[in-house]
């Protein structure tokens, strides 16, 4: 079919070459899987970042149904030098959504590759394709009455295990560090080869999802947050469903309490007494998740004053910090751990413990308990209504799980956000030794002035945190090049040497995590 001139083209590609590539894609995939009309591309272009949608507009999107088609797409891309941006379910809200890192890239949408290839209830693992959602897997486990439990991010129902692992996302169960639980990948490389990591290369092996390391170099990690291959299958371990699950919340009144909370928590996390990725959410995260809206309290622009935060606490019973954790196991195990944990909190002399029995169906306790026990929901999207206007960028620096460090980061982030008239909406996700300090930089995209402030704010957050030796673990596509610089030139040189070796035509997601042969000059 003849196309009108496309106003958005891949970098360095002429209209004529692009047309040829589209023709080749149509021949390979069929007309209905090559999307190039504006109304087909708009859903892929709705970003939440502090730039116009056009800055990340794709030139086209392709939907594929098989590994062979992925190989065919890669072949055409090499021939015409077309850059592609792979997504699994594309629900990377706040990190770039489904849109590509660079304007004009062709989205390779893997949503139609959505087969659950295997769930092994004895060995407790799953092997899935990119388009499988957590909800799909949850339904499968429920329908087949399997004694297994999922771990997922808050957009659980609609996100994918493969996409989440690709961005090294986190969940809230004992298996919450998702990349740690990953075991075995199948990757289509830029030259079309199919590479299976770990034990996957051994003919007839039945341990691909059992033993991560295989033999020689272990390369799985280099395909995450990267652009060295298109992952078409992923294996990951599943937690056996425990007979008893005991979620609880501890509410702390004051912002300064964060120091004591973290100091008390760390030994319980490192010893495994509290096994899951604990969350410590601040009052605004808690309020947003429970659908409290800013305009109920103020319609003034700028950041929300501390007096209002205190009023929200009084009105709702929420804390300045709200800790959610859970115990898992047999009744005897849970009872024994509960004794240790509750006594530790009592010794701390602050914090009000809330159990499931006390909380009932109240939000946000309910959705937190669901996340910690592998039941999908979308409750946390309420954050988008706190300020409203469609702007959201996660600022996610890594912190030591040390009270003084968490307090320092919290104060620094709050000061910078307030300087730019924005709110500190944050949670700490507690690993044994690290914290993902996740701040939702929420702003109103209908207001150009506020959008510009959000952009300046994000830059300043990155700059000021870097001065203190902090860096983020993941970032939206607008700031990936900037963040890559924080990690040093040697790392970048190595990454580009690998890129040159594996993808000399620079067709796979150039710009992903700052890796782009076209713009990175060092030889």
């Amino acid at each position: 079919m003849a196309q009108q001139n496309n106003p958005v083209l891949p970098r360095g590609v002429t209209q004529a070459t692009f047309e040829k590539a589209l023709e080749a894609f149509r021949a390979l995939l069929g007309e209905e899987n090559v999307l190039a009309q504006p109304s087909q591309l708009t859903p892929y272009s709705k970003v939440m970042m502090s730039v116009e949608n056009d800055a990340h507009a794709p030139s086209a999107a392709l939907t594929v149904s098989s590994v062979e088609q992925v190989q065919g797409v890669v072949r055409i891309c090499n021939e015409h030098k077309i850059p592609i941006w792979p997504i699994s379910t594309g629900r990377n809200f706040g990190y770039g959504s489904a849109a590509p890192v660079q304007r004009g890239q062709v989205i390779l949408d893997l949503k139609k590759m959505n087969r659950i290839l295997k769930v092994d209830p004895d060995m407790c693992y799953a092997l899935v394709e990119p388009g499988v959602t957590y909800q799909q897997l949850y339904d499968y486990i429920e329908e087949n009455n399997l004694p297994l439990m999922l771990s997922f991010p808050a957009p659980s129902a609609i996100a994918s295990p493969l996409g989440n692992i690709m961005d090294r996302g986190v969940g809230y169960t004992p298996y919450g560090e998702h990349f740690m639980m990953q075991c075995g990948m199948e990757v289509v490389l830029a030259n079309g080869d199919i590479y299976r990591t770990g034990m996957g290369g051994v003919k007839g092996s039945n341990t691909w999802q059992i033993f991560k390391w295989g033999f020689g170099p272990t390369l799985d990690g280099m395909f995450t947050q990267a652009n060295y291959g298109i992952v078409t299958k992923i294996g990951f371990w599943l937690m056996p469903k425990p007979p008893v699950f005991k979620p609880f919340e501890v509410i702390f009144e004051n912002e300064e309490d964060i120091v004591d909370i973290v100091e008390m928590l760390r030994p319980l996390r490192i010893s495994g007494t509290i096994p899951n990725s604990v969350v410590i959410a601040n009052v605004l995260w808690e309020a947003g998740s429970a659908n409290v809206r800013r305009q109920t309290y103020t319609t003034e622009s700028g950041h929300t004053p501390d007096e209002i935060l205190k009023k929200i606490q009084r009105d709702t019973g929420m804390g300045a910090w709200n800790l959610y954790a859970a115990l898992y196991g047999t009744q005897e195990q849970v009872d024994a751990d509960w004794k240790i944990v509750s006594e530790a909190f009592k010794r701390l002399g602050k914090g009000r413990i809330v159990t499931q029995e006390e909380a009932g169906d109240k939000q946000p306790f309910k959705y937190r308990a669901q996340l910690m026990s592998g039941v999908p929901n979308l409750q946390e999207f309420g954050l988008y209504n706190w300020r409203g206007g469609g702007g959201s960028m996660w600022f996610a620096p890594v912190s030591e799980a040390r009270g003084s460090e968490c307090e320092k980061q919290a104060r620094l982030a709050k000061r910078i956000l307030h300087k730019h008239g924005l709110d500190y909406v944050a949670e700490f996700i507690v690993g044994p030794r690290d914290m993902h300090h996740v701040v939702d930089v929420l702003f109103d995209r209908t207001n150009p002035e506020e959008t510009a402030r959000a952009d300046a704010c994000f830059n300043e957050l990155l700059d000021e945190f870097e001065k203190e030796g902090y860096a983020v673990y993941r970032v939206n596509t607008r700031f990936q090049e900037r963040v890559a610089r924080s990690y040093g030139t040697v790392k970048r040189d190595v990454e580009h040497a690998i890129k040159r070796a594996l993808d000399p035509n620079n067709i796979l997601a150039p710009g992903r995590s700052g890796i782009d042969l076209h713009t990175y000059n060092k030889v």
Partner: protein
Amino acid sequence: MRWSRRAVLKSLAISSAGLAMARPRGTVASASGDGRRLLALVNDDPAGAAFLRGAMAAGAVLLQARIISSDVQALLALERELRQADGLRVIGLLDDATGTLVVDLARGAGARISWLAQHATSTEGSRHLVFDIDRTEDRTRWLVDHLYAKGAGYQTVVQRRGESPKQWSSGPRGAAPPGVWPGAVGHLLGSLATSTRAIRDAGSDNVVTHDKFVSFLIEV
């Protein structure tokens, strides 16, 4: 203020099931153009009610109205519906959380989006960020003219693929009602969805809201 679900539905005279057919008085049944089913999604709030009244005033017949929130089951059911539908148009005005989810589920279901905008009410009137998709500039222009005619203040930015954004703005005049825009957006989308050519007067429904919204036209 707690706006009850019943009040929204009652104001539209559609059945309490929330899924009923509504035929606005005095409109012509064939006005839906190609006869595709038309579904409207709104929140349980006054802006949603004004949006629906606006859509129906535009002659959007065979209108099904559904109140929706970010409840996971309702959203997954909508996604299934979009996936399985053969000829369905969905217009809506939703809070940011639900709107973001609905638009992305439409992407997942392979639907087209012919209109997408963000809206906010401000002290000076209202702000609209419109992603112009299928050359709907004349419709945006109509929205702006309508707000101007009512004396309402507005700031409208139109972004289009491959072009620099366009802006229109005007301050409020007289005792201008700041909340006429939800009805006007309903009218605009009702007419866009039903391919009604002549846009009649969208009325002056004035809604007091400080919430922010996403509006859309999804086509399967």
